[in-house]
């Protein structure tokens, strides 16, 4: 009996060893943490877009400005309520069918009925005009429509992909077509020879979702993966010393923020919020915990070119000034070093969540730094849903969170939902500022580039002055790339892994 078992094991081992190992072939192995939770673009549309299987009407350039993709050009009517998009000619989907205006309108109408930014735009109708023109009618002028159309959830699939509003297969028009899908973990693509645009040099690629950061780093180091997305700080430090991989980093429009309840008695005066901000040693915090120089000097990092204002005076570290500000508000140090006013201690609860493992660590350091100026903070590291929940019931005091501003290349959509007149779950709480609202309102109406820049700077300056949230750090995205791959890059807007531009070294 044992002999039979042994023979079985031996055969299976032999079979296993005879197969060819990955990464020696000419297939680009991409590894990232994102699971493919479903075919619906509302769920994992970003993976299909990053692998360049699907496309959107509008793309973004390196600064985040809208550029043509499936839409060759667009015009907007004088009243700003009608947008007309002319489609690229000779575009074919992977099933061979031609891109028609009817299909685009139908795909967008299905997308806007599901969660995603498009559902938040004031769209009245999306219709096809003939074969190559799509018309979008709005109930009021809305300049951010272009970045909204660039969201992965607004991807255009072939009519054969849909069964009613459900997506049953991914038939896109991108430079790569899907050849195999094993949800939730992997997919494979090959170059689509009928692509309308510039043809990529890479012929085949695979995507694998690996949730553990240690495993991803080891896959990069062993050469099993050629493009590894999202490395943890410890692995990054280790891989930086290795000659087996190249590391590429960019700061991305995802910021660590402290959300403050501006309606709270202790925090309603802007001087109190400024004091909390001045007490934070951002550089020390970022280097010690995030392990890269990522101290935030304002809400948006420089990689978000159109929203970063280089002329804005940076958020600084000055605990003495912080103490002075709090003293001017009538706070006096008690026996234990904690500030007291009218018999009340300056004690607050900081709510955070461990989904991003660095957040509770950052919270602990903040707790220490605030104690220096006499502010006592209790950390409540709980479920991430508690921040929106406590925002809604008004009990939140301080919240430490990470916010992604680049769901689309222009964060105006996120700004509207987070910092609108009534605040937002992941943004301001009990805060209003007339100059900010005016700027945001202008941005939804005015499409002119230079006027837009002035308004964006006005909005960012208002947040910097009023601090409805305190920016702490900017995240940095790091990828590990095989030295065999040339022209590999990292997109700060996380729209592509760059398969369409990379190539194998000679």
């Amino acid at each position, binding site marked *: *009996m*044992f002999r039979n*078992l*042994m023979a*079985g*094991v031996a055969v*299976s*081992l032999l*079979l*296993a*060893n005879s*197969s*060819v*190992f*990955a990464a020696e072939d000419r297939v680009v192995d991409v590894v990232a943490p994102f*699971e493919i*939770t*479903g075919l*619906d673009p*509302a*769920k994992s549309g*970003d993976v299909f877009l990053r692998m360049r299987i699907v496309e959107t009407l509008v793309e973004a350039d390196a600064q985040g400005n809208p550029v043509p993709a499936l839409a060759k050009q667009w015009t907007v009517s004088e009243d700003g309520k009608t947008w007309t998009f002319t489609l690229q000619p000779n575009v074919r989907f992977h099933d061979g069918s031609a891109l028609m205006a009817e299909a685009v309108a139908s795909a967008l109408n299905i997308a806007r009925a599901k*969660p*995603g*930014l498009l559902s938040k735009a004031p769209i009245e109708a999306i219709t096809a005009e003939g074969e190559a023109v799509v018309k979008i009618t709005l109930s009021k002028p809305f300049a951010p429509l272009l970045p909204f159309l660039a969201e992965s959830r607004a991807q255009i699939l072939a009519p054969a992909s849909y069964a009613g509003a459900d997506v049953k297969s991914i038939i896109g028009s991108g430079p790569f077509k899907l050849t195999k899908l*094993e*949800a*939730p*973990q*992997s997919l494979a693509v090959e170059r689509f020879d009928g692509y309308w645009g510039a043809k990529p040099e890479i012929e085949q690629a*695979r995507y*694998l979702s*690996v*949730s*553990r950061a*240690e*495993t991803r780093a*080891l*896959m990069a*180091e*062993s*050469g*099993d993966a050629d493009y590894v997305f999202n490395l943890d700080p410890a692995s990054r430090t280790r891989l930086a010393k290795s000659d087996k991989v190249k590391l590429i980093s960019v700061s991305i429009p995802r910021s660590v923020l402290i959300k403050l309840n501006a309606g709270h008695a202790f925090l309603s005066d802007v001087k109190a919020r400024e004091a909390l901000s001045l007490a934070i040693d951002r550089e020390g915090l970022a280097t010690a915990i995030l392990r890269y120089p990522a101290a935030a000097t304002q809400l948006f990092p420089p990689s978000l070119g159109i929203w970063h204002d280089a002329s804005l005076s940076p958020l600084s570290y000055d605990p003495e000034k912080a103490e002075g500000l709090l003293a001017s508000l009538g706070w006096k140090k008690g026996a234990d070093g904690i500030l007291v006013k009218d018999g009340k201690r300056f004690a607050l609860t900081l709510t955070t969540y461990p*989904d991003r493992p660095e957040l509770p660590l950052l919270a602990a350091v903040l707790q220490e730094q605030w104690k220096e100026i006499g502010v006592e903070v209790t950390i409540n590291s*709980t*479920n*991430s*849903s*508690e921040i*929106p*929940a406590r*925002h*809604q019931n008004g009990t939140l005091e301080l919240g430490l969170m990470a*916010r*992604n501003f680049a*769901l689309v290349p222009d964060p105006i959509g996120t700004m509207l*939902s987070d910092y609108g007149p009534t605040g*937002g*779950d*992941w943004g301001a709480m009990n805060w209003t500022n007339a100059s900010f609202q005016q700027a945001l309102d202008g941005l939804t109406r005015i499409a002119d580039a230079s006027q837009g820049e002035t308004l964006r700077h006005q909005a960012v300056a208002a947040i910097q002055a009023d601090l409805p949230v305190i920016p702490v750090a900017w995240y940095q995205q790091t990828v590990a790339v095989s030295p065999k791959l040339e022209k590999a890059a990292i997109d700060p807007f996380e729209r592509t892994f760059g398969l369409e531009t990379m190539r194998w070294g000679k």
Partner: protein
Amino acid sequence: MRMILNRLLQAVLVAFTVGLLTFIMIRLLPGDVAYRIAAGRYGYDVVDSAAAAKVAAELDLNRPAIEAFGLWLYDLVRLDLGTSLVSGEPVWDELVMQLGHTLQLAVSAILLSLLIGPLLGILAGLNRGGFLDRGLMLVSTALRALPQFVVGLGLIVIFGLMLNLLPTAGHAHGSHLVLPAFTLALGLAAVSAQVARDAMAEVAQSQFYRFARTKGLPEWQVFRRHGLRNVAVPIVTYLGVQFIYLVEGVVVVETLFAWPGIGHALVHAIFGRDVPVIQGAALVMGLMFVVLNAAVDGFCYIIDPRRRDA
């Protein structure tokens, strides 16, 4: 016959208990279920109160707990595990695919462990106190004490990085199976080696074994006729106990090696509060335990003729 009936009853009890326990535990987890499901579906970055409210309304999450549990039981009786709250696919379809991967991993691990553990154990047992015996004791104790996570990482570093012999993680080729199966097998082998060693040592001391030697049979024949069956019974019986280790092991090992099995799915389902998938996966793992134990009983029945008479 009676044994099969007993096992069936056991399976039904396991199904009910697993269902009830997972149900209660999910209810006790902190945080708002609707938020977690919405985050699992659409990603953290688009989840706000509006999206969560939409999910809660769509899935009728606010109905009383007892009613929800009753519905689940009713569906279970009809062999319907429902659909995943995150992916929208039928839970049964997802489980069948994942179970295939997990069984592949688990069976390979068991076979590998049987190849390593008992062999070394028997050799050690035949030479009690020898170099092999003492070395095996040390290594098997160390392996059993180390978490699988550490063993797995160690194997990746040795075979994936230093020797560059095997791929580190993934599931595209057959070779991807080797390291995760080996990780699980080492833990299993550590125990079965000890069991085999003790059993062999005891058998080797017994009068019948010594008599067989005395009458001049070659060592191999003595072992084959008088040792093998006697040693095999405790090893196979212990295997049944070790399945618990296997069930907990697949959860860790699958996550570490990105193996698309049921343990990996369970972890993600818990994060996304995907209740039907959690219940389905726990149920299948519970039943797998019952089936494997039944198989062990059957196996022992074949090996040990004394049981047949009883």
